[in-house]
Structure formats: C-alpha cells, structure tokens
C-alpha cells in the first residue's frame, strides 16, 4: 500500500501549503499601511459607536479584531477561513468578500481553462511536428517561435492583440465581458455577446502558455524518439501505429507537470489580460482593490488564486503515479 501512503503524503503537503499561505496573508494584512482594521475601528468609534460595538463591527468586516491577543486574532481568522468567510469589503461596505470574489472567479477560470485547452491542443500538435521535423527549417522555426512566445511577457501579447484586433482591425469589441445592451440570461444575444467579448482574452491566455506546451512536447518527444525501446520496437517489426502510441504515451508524462505550472502562469497572466481587456475577473479585482486600498478584497482574491494553483498542483502530483508505473512502487 505504498501508493496510498504516497498519495496521502502529497495531500497533506497541499494542505500544509494552503495553510502557510493563509497564515502569510494574515500577517501581511496586519502589516499593511495604517492597519486598515484599526483604522476602521477608530473611524467607527468616531462615528459614535461604543468601543465594543466598533470591535464587533470590525470583527465582522475583517474577520478578526485588532488589539486582541495575536493568537486569538489568528485563531479567529483561520476559523472563519474554514467557513469560507473572508471578511467584508471596505470599498463596498457590508458586502462579504466571498461574494465579490466568487462572482469574479468564474470570469477568470472559464477563460483561463478555455485558453489552456486551446493552447494544449495547438501546442502539443506543433510540438510533435517540431520534434519530427527537427532537422529542417520547419522544426527550427517552430522551436524558435515557441521559445519566443514563451519568453514574451503576457502583457505584450495582450496589448498587441488588443491593438491589432480592436483598433487597427475593429473585429472585436473593445474590452468588457459583455455588452450592456443585452439582458443577462440564457438568450442568444447575451450568450453571443459573451462569446465575442471572450475571444481575444482566450486567445491571449492561449498564446501565453502555447510556448510552454510546444517546447515541452518537442523536447519530450525528441527524448523518447532517442530512447532504446523505440528503436527496439521498430527492429521487432511493430506496426507504425503501435510505435506512435508507445511514443505518445511516454512523451506525455512530462506534460503533466507542466499542467500545474501552466495554471500558475495563467493566473499570473490574468492580471494583465483582464487589465488590458477590462475583464471583470480575479485579476482585475486584485488591481482595483489595490487602488481603492480595499485590502480584504485583495486578500480574498489573492488567497483564492493561490489556493486554486496549489489545488491544481496537488491534483497533478496525485495523478502522476497513476500514470507512470515506475513511480508507483518505490
């Protein structure tokens, strides 16, 4: 049952990481300029609340009460987290942060996942071609192109896309996630508008990770192609289709580890893409909350992003032994 122990260990590691990040965020908020919690409390008192009322109000807003012993604050904070309570927003008084973050979350995740899907399909296909044709111009250009896209900052891609396709050639709407003309709901106009507004951001997400897929696939395929067992398979007269399946299955392994990294890249990139395209997702939420100094919201968005990435990483870690028998029984 070594496999079960391995999986359990990875699960625990994931939980520990989330806990560490949550704690770090807690201490970060304490550190923020003017400790907004205290500032809020002081303001409440000025507005006529009694100290106890002010404390309770601040507790409701931030998830903890300043001036309580640190351990109490910390415990209170963690307890609320477990209940998915992220406190309340400063800028939008009274609105729970969890609500704000939850409404922004889908706009980021759906686009990011679509982007990953597109870039995976495209990147892996191009990577295989680059590997097979690696001694020629096609392979070289694909490799170089992939490497350049990989190294290119996401905002460069986003700006160029925006510029080219909304200003120079007005093919797509200039930002936003949906046109206000349509009523929200399952009608064609609304859905259609969402789609047209999503095309460019999805392309941006896709291009941001395309390079990683392409390069990893190419190097993985090249390495497998050079593996002894492929030559052995050919020398034993195996059918080309079977050999191709051998190659694919073996070359896919490293891509798994890339999946988690790609998600991390995407969330990092979402900040830029949503900023340029004015898309109401988590990235834009982070930026606007910095400008309005709405720290609970910043916290909440940040925490959600980190947790999503850690979860993705852990899932990938858990799935890997299931795919590679060599790891299973060590």
């Amino acid at each position, binding site marked *: 049952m070594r496999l079960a122990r391995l999986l359990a260990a990875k699960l625990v590691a994931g939980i520990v990481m989330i806990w560490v990040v949550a704690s770090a965020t807690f201490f970060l908020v304490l550190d923020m300029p003017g400790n907004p919690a205290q500032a809020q409390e002081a303001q409440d008192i000025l507005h006529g609340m009694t100290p106890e009322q002010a404390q309770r109000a601040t507790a409701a807003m931030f998830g903890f009460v300043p001036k309580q012993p640190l351990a109490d604050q910390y415990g209170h904070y963690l307890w609320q987290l477990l209940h998915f309570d992220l406190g309340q927003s400063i800028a939008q008084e009274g609105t729970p942060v969890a609500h704000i973050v939850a409404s922004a979350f889908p706009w980021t995740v759906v686009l990011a996942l679509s982007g990953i899907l597109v870039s995976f399909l495209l990147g892996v296909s191009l990577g295989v071609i680059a590997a097979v044709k690696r001694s020629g111009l096609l392979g070289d250009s694909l490799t170089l192109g992939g490497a350049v896209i990989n190294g290119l900052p996401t905002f460069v891609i986003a700006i160029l896309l925006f510029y080219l396709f909304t200003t120079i050639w007005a093919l797509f709407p200039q930002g936003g996630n949906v046109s206000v003309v349509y009523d929200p709901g399952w009608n064609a106009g609304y859905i259609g508008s969402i789609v047209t507004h999503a095309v460019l951001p999805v392309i941006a997400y896709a291009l941001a990770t395309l390079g990683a897929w392409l390069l990893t696939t190419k190097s993985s395929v090249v390495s497998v192609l050079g593996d*002894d067992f492929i030559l*052995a398979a*050919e*020398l034993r007269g*195996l*059918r080309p289709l079977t050999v191709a399946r051998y190659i694919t299955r073996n070359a896919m392994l490293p891509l798994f580890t890339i999946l988690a990294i790609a998600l991390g890249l995407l969330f990092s990139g979402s900040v830029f893409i949503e900023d340029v395209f004015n898309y109401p997702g988590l990235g834009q939420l982070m930026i606007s909350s910095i400008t309005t100094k709405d720290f609970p919201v910043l916290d909440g968005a940040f925490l959600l992003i980190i947790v999503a990435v850690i979860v993705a990483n852990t899932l990938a870690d858990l799935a890997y032994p299931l795919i590679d028998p060599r790891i299973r029984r060590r």
Partner: protein
Amino acid sequence: MTGEADLATADALDRTGSGAAVAVRVQDLTVTFPTPDGPLPAVAGVSLSLVPGGITGLVGESGSGKSTLALTLLNAVPFPGHVAAGAVSVDGIGDVLALRRAELRRVRGAKLGYVFQASQNSLNPLKQVGKQLLDLGRSHGVRDRRALLRRARQLMDEMGMDAARVLASYQHELSGGMRQRVGIVFALVLNAHVLILDEPTTALDMLSQAAVLDIIRKVHREHHLTTLIISHDVGVIGDLADRMAVMYAGRIVEEGPTAAVLANPMHPYTRGLLTAMPRISGDIGAARPLPGRPPDLASIPRAGCVFRPRCPLATDGCAAAEPPDTVLLDRRFACYVTAGELA
C-alpha cells in the same frame, strides 16, 4: 510471404528438425556517414557469410563498425548514415536492403530476430511485458494469442524464468539478466530462424554473463538457428562461436574457424587483441595492450592499410593500397606482411 506466423506448425518444425537452416550472406557492404570532411564509411566493403545453422562471432573494438553492420542486417542504419553499396541476402527473403517498407517490417521480428545491445531498456517502460508481447503478435498478424503466449512461456521456461511473473511485470521490475533473456524471447517468439545478438553480455555481471551464454547456446541448438554474436569480448566469442570474424575500422581483417583463429592468428590486429588479454593463469605481465587508440571515422587513414598506424609489422608497402583478402583453406585475412611470409 504471408503475414501470419503459424506458431503451432513452427513448434512442430522445431522439434523434428526439418526445415533447412537459413543462410545469410553479406556481400560487399559499405555504409557511409556524412561528416564535416565528406561522407566516410563506417563499414567498408564487408563480405561475410554466416554459418547456416551455426554460431558466427564478430569481434571488434568500439568504433569498429560492428554495431552499424548489425543494424544494417535489418536495414536499420541510423540516421544520418546510409547504405552506399552492397547487399544482405537471406534465404527465403532475398536482399534485405532492397525490401520495401511493409515487407521489411514483416521480416523484422518474424524472420530476423535482433537482440538489442542495450537490452536494459529495450521494452516500453509503461507497459507490462505480456501486453507488449501481444502488441508484437498483433503487429505481425498473429491471430492465435494463446499459442503466442504458450510459445513465449515455453521459451521463458527454457531460459529458467518464472513465465507468469515475468509476463505480468514492468521492465523496471526485472533484473538485468532477466531483461536480457526477455530480449531473446521477443526475438524468437515469432519463430525467426536468424538470431542476431549485439553485445549480449556487456551490461551484465559475470554470473549473469555465464548464464546468458549458456542460454544462447541452448536456444540456438533447440531451435536450429543461424546465429550471429557481436562482441568486443574475445572470450565470449571464443566460448560460443563456430566461426569468427575480426573487424577493425569498418573492415573484416580476419575470418575463420574460431579454434584456428585463436590458436594461430594471421592478422597483426588479431594477434594484438589476443596478446592484450590477460590470462587467468600465468604471468600477468605477458599481457600487452595495443598501442594507440581505436580509430574514429575521421582518423582512419584514407589510403593503404587501415591498421598501419598501430601495426608493429607495418612496412612502406602497406601505405599504398588496402591489402586484398588472402584466402587460405577455410580462413581469410587481409595483410600484406603475413601474406608475404606465407608465400
């Protein structure tokens, strides 16, 4: 030729011993590789006939071209090399080098069995051995899966392996010796009558080496194979082969019955090889290594005898052109000086 290997009949044929042994003839083979100085031959004008029904040994240092020669027998010269001239004729197949891709694929594995130099990694690490065996059968149109597995089990039993366990294992769960034996099973399971083993003992410890050599001998006898063993280890060749050939810098410099060649080597290189081997008994100081280093593609002399830079008997006459083969009864060698002495 049909795509289906009839294993039941093959089994029967094996036992009765009918079915003539297969002859394999390499004729004037040259394989070149592109280099910054132009295309250079890794195998140059090699002619070699394998003993039908017997074991032929090929000895050479690394870089002598022996592995390239082995791969060429299956028309699998690694890119970017290619066959510049020559033919490989096999009874019942014709010239392997002239086969079209589909026929070539059918011949490989089913008629010509190849056991890999690095059998340590010759299997797909992600699939069980048994499943890969079935893949092999399917690729060659074998419809009776049970007969295939039965034959595999029989071969494994002959080699002293626990067939059930091995078939269910992944490559990384098998020891080096077992992987080598599995390699042999895969080469013979489709009833090929020609077996080519490239450095079958190199990656193994001494005990496994001895075991594998015994197995090769036994399997060769039981299934009436025509076997070619390639090794840098003269001891291995001396132990198993009926006839042996010595390869240097892409050329065959000497060939003949093993016992005769080892007792009375004609070519200076062969003599040097044998002198370099320390014996278990006797004066260890008697062993003397060959001077110089094995040549690589670029440093082989372009004119004259290729062994001249390291040869203790070299004369000016050796510089002009490559020595022709001198045939002496059932032996041949290529050396001006020895030929001169015998004349």
